[in-house]
Every structure is written in structure tokens, then in C-alpha cells.
């Protein structure tokens, strides 16, 4: 291919114009932030992000666009380790962020002390979603282990929500009269013997339960259960709140390594801090997460069922320990599955 000189000059000019307009785009104060999050926060951040952008523009004059990525919490932690350069990680449980600190050196090991309330601006708990009229009469945890009840929950190996589900059931059994590690294991095993489908993430399980109509009861996040009622109809499902459940604390953190690379560390911190602001806390409550802020909690308290909550700390110590005992290779979850396999053989 050969161009005539005149045409070649035109091409050079066009290229130069193209490049300079690109450069113009870069120099404008258009900021970008990447939030790598878990499954059931899609709707929460879809509303929170524009609110933060507005706040930031009023405060600094700069515009921020926030890119969202969602998936099972464990899977998202894996992606961050493999190089998905999120400025902030908003995952389902502390362990998934611990991994980022330990295996990837992506943020300091004391990340959980850098923001208020153990870096968890909102909490939730684990409840049951059943079909309208509650045909299997499910009221509390022991009903999930009954013969003939089909249970849907995601896989604790990949899903953060599923690990909360598992620990909630375990903690309930421990706190019964005469409860100990052995009775808890037998109790949880009975529930998992009734599980028909193990999806990789909470949203996958919800779809299995609602769209494919598999199972009698879905063990899930409280916020996810209310979202289903709102999005898919109160006529088809009911929420059953157990008598006792776990206080689920999904943490948030600035992923220091990536934020430093992008020069967004300050912005990322402000973004997460805004979650604690009255506006942030109100959005949190609106999407059925339990706000930390007392005023916002009071406003939204009525929408939640009454349930006694225990913390991970008081029953299991910390995430590293809980992960090691229950979800590592050969942990209680694997033992339960192996016994189940033997029974089937």
C-alpha cells in the first residue's frame, strides 16, 4: 500500500488530532474507582455509587465513575490475587480480605482496624426463604434437618454467604442445652444431607430456588431474602427468621497496592468512609442490610424479623480459626461430605 504525499500528510494530521484529543481526555479530572464486591451487594452499590459521585463532585469538583465487579466472595478474592486491580474490596467475610493481605501483600495485615466497627459499615444475618404458606412448616434450624425437607445453600468452599450459613447452623447447635462440637457436627450434617444443589455463589442459589424452583427452603443472607420478596413478588415466598442466628459482618477495605498504583488511595478511603455517613447508612438500610449507625438502624429496625444474634468472635474466635477448623481441606465440611458419600454408597 502506498499513499500519495498529500494523502499521507492528511493521515498524519488526522492521527495527531486523534492523539491530542485522547491526551485531553486523560488530563481532565475524571477519576475512576474499581469496587470488587460479592454477590448480593449489586443493588446496594448500584444506588450508593451515584450518591458518592454526587457528594464527591460537590466537595472537590471532580467527577468519579465507579466500576463494579460482582461474584462469589471467595472467587472475587482469588481474582484480586490474580491481578484484578480493584481499588476497594467489599467482600462477604474477613477471611477473604485476610487472604489478600497474607498471600498477595495487597494491603496491610491490620486492615480491619483502619475503619470503624471492624471495617464493617453494615451487618446482616442468615435467615430462611420458604415458599408461600410455608408448606413444610419450617420455623427454626432443626426443621432444616428433618427428613423430606430439601435445602438450597451455596458451597462454603467458594461462597462467603455459605460459610456464614454453615457457621450460623453450627453456632445454633452449640448453644442448645448439652451442645458441644460433636452434637454440632451431627446437627449440621443432617442439614447438609438435605442439600440438593450447591451453587458457587449466593446469587446462584437464589436463582436455583426461585427460577428453577428447586428445594423447600433457601438458607441465605437476610438482605438477599428481602430483595427476593421485593423483586420477585411477595406472593410466592415468605421469610422465616430463626430464633438464633449469626451476626454476619461483611467487611470493606482499601486495596492499598492497587490504589497506590492508580493514585486513588485517598479517594478510595473517602469512598468507604462515605458508607458510614448518614446518607450511606440510609442507603444501606434501604437495601435491607443492618446499618451500624444507631439512627439509621432505628429507622429500619421494624423491617427486620426478631432474632437473637451471636458474633463470630464469641463462638469461633476469628476467621483464620473458623476457616481452618471448618472449611480447609479435611475440615468439618469435608468430613460431613465424606460421610455423606459413604452413606450414599
Amino acid at each position, binding site marked *: 500500500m502506498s499513499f500519495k504525499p498529500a494523502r499521507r500528510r492528511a493521515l498524519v494530521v488526522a492521527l495527531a488530532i486523534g492523539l491530542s484529543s485522547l491526551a485531553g481526555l486523560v488530563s481532565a479530572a475524571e477519576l475512576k474507582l474499581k469496587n470488587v464486591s460479592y454477590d448480593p451487594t*449489586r443493588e446496594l452499590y448500584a444506588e450508593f455509587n451515584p450518591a458518592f459521585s454526587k457528594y464527591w463532585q460537590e466537595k472537590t469538583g471532580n467527577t468519579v465513575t465507579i466500576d463494579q465487579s460482582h461474584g462469589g466472595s471467595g472467587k472475587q478474592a482469588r481474582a484480586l490475587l490474580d491481578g484484578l486491580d480493584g481499588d476497594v474490596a467489599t467482600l462477604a467475610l474477613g477471611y477473604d480480605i485476610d487472604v489478600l493481605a497474607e498471600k498477595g501483600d495487597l494491603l496491610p495485615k491490620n486492615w480491619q482496624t483502619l475503619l470503624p466497627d471492624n471495617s464493617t459499615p453494615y451487618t446482616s444475618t442468615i435467615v430462611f426463604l420458604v415458599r408461600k404458606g410455608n408448606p413444610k412448616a419450617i420455623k427454626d434450624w432443626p426443621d432444616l434437618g428433618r427428613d423430606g425437607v430439601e435445602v438450597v445453600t451455596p458451597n462454603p468452599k467458594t461462597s462467603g454467604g455459605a460459610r456464614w450459613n454453615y457457621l450460623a447452623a453450627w453456632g445454633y447447635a452449640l448453644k442448645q442445652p448439652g451442645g458441644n462440637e460433636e452434637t454440632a457436627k451431627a446437627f449440621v450434617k443432617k442439614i447438609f444431607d438435605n442439600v440438593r444443589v450447591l451453587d458457587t455463589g449466593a446469587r446462584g442459589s437464589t436463582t436455583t430456588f426461585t427460577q428453577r424452583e428447586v428445594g423447600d427452603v433457601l438458607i441465605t443472607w437476610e438482605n438477599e431474602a428481602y430483595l427476593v420478596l421485593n423483586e420477585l413478588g411477595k406472593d410466592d415466598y415468605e421469610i422465616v427468621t430463626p430464633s438464633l442466628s449469626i451476626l454476619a459482618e461483611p467487611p470493606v477495605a482499601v486495596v492499598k497496592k492497587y490504589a497506590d498504583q492508580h493514585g486513588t488511595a485517598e479517594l478510595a478511603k473517602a469512598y468507604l468512609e462515605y458508607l458510614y455517613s448518614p446518607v450511606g447508612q440510609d442507603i444501606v438500610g434501604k437495601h435491607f442490610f443492618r446499618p451500624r449507625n444507631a439512627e439509621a438502624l432505628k429507622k429500619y429496625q421494624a423491617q427486620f424479623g426478631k432474632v437473637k444474634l451471636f458474633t463470630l468472635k464469641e463462638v469461633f474466635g476469628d476467621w483464620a480459626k473458623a476457616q481452618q477448623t471448618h472449611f480447609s481441606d479435611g475440615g468439618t465440611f469435608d468430613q460431613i461430605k465424606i460421610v455423606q458419600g459413604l452413606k450414599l454408597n
Partner: protein
Amino acid sequence: MSGMVGGIQAYHGAELYELSPATREPKWARYTILGLSLTFFAIFLLMPLLAVFVEALRKGWDVYWQAITNPDTGAAIRLTLLAAAIAIPLNVVFGVAAAWCISKFEFRGKQLLITLIDLPFSVSPVVAGLVYVLVFGAHGWFGEWLSEHNIKIIFAVPGIVLATIFVTFPFVARELIPLMQAQGTDAEEAAVSLGASGWQTFWRVTLPSIKWGLLYGVILCNARAMGEFGAVSVVSGHLRGQTTTLPLHVEILYNEYQFAAAFAVASLLALLALVTLGIKLFIEWKSA
């Protein structure tokens, strides 16, 4: 003209075959077989296709229009087209070169090359995606070097393009190799003996005789490039409006309970498939 005469003769041949009692099936057998195949066609091909459009329009044209004009959908369309626009030319160059090598020359390792070209067909796309993560990921072989030089491959557009190139690799070559082998080397040898250069031989002799096969390969390659899910999903990172192609965008919408929107975007892919089939039919008719 000669093609038409041949067609008429073939038609008569079929008629005679049908009329002869020795080769004619009883009526009930013919209708049962016809009925079975039509039923299967309706259940497994027609119904899902219709379902996509019915679901897409369930909430009306407004929702449909909003779904396909949404900025994130626009970004997904652009990324899908970009990946295809890069993968197809590379495939054409590689496919023609490989087919030319294999069909016109004898060399050692030829069989191995043919087998290697088929590799992307036999490897699961998910594995292909994971390989790219292992090579270019933060802890992969080139991870450190890439991050030092601030180059993003995985969880960015280059990763998606790479994965697309990988899964579409064999299409053009696979289409051309049998065609060029059947044509042999006579025409090229004649051209060379009359004094044509290698380049002239290719442009004037080889290319005109393979153009329909080449186009057919491009069509198939395009369909796969736009429809690929597995490999692209692994390297995408699922950043809305940034690294989601059309199939990934459909999954995201579905997971957000936006079923009508998910099917609306899916209907774009289905339309694309129908257009592809149309072009394919046209090419078959043209090249027959």
C-alpha cells in the same frame, strides 16, 4: 447453466428412486420419520429461539429498548465487536498461511501442525482462560514484569481479545485445508511455469478459488468470537461496562433479576446468529 441441468437430473434421479417400489418406504414410516424430525426441530431449535424473543418482549418494547440502549449494553456491544474485529483478521492471515503450507507443500511435522491447529477445539474454553490467568496473572510467569511496566492483560481488554483469538483459532484453517487439498497444486504450478511470482500466484490463482471457503470460515469465526462465554468469563473480571462482552452482560443482567433485559440482550445475540445463518446460506448458494 451446466449446474442447473445437473440439478434437474439429480431431481429426476430422486423422483425415480422414490417411485421404484423396491426402494420406497411405506407411507407410515415416511410420515413418522418426517414427524419425528420436525418435532425435534420444533422443541430443541425453534422453541428456545422463540422463547428468547417472547421473554425479551414480556415487559413491552419500552423495557426492551431501554435494555439494548443502556450504556453498559453499548459498552458490551463495542467490546464484543472489538474482540471480533481483532480476532478475525488474525485468523484470516493465520488460517490462509497454515492452509497454504499444509496443502501445497510437503514437510516434516505436517501432521503435528494439523493436530495443533485443532487444539482449541479439543480444550475446554475454561481451561484456555485459566492458562492465560496462570501466564499473565499477578502471580503468573510474566505477572511481575507486566505489573512493573504497568501493562494490564488479564481482567482487561487484551485478555478478552487473547481468549477470543485462542478459541477461534482453527476456524479459517479448518475450512480451507480440505478445500485447498482437493484443489491440488496444478493451477499454481501452471502459473509459476508461465512466469508468475509467488505473490502473483497467490492473488490471481489461489485466492479466487478459495474465496467462498474463506468467507465461510470468517462467518463461523465471527459467530464464535461474539458468542464465546467460558474462556472470556475467566479472564474478564466482570467489570460492568469495562470488560463484559455481550454473553457476559446477559449473565450479569440475569443475576440481577432483570430477566426481560437479559433476554433483550440475548435476543441481540440470537439476531446475530440468524444474520450469520443468512449470510452462510447466501455463501453456500453463491459458491455451489
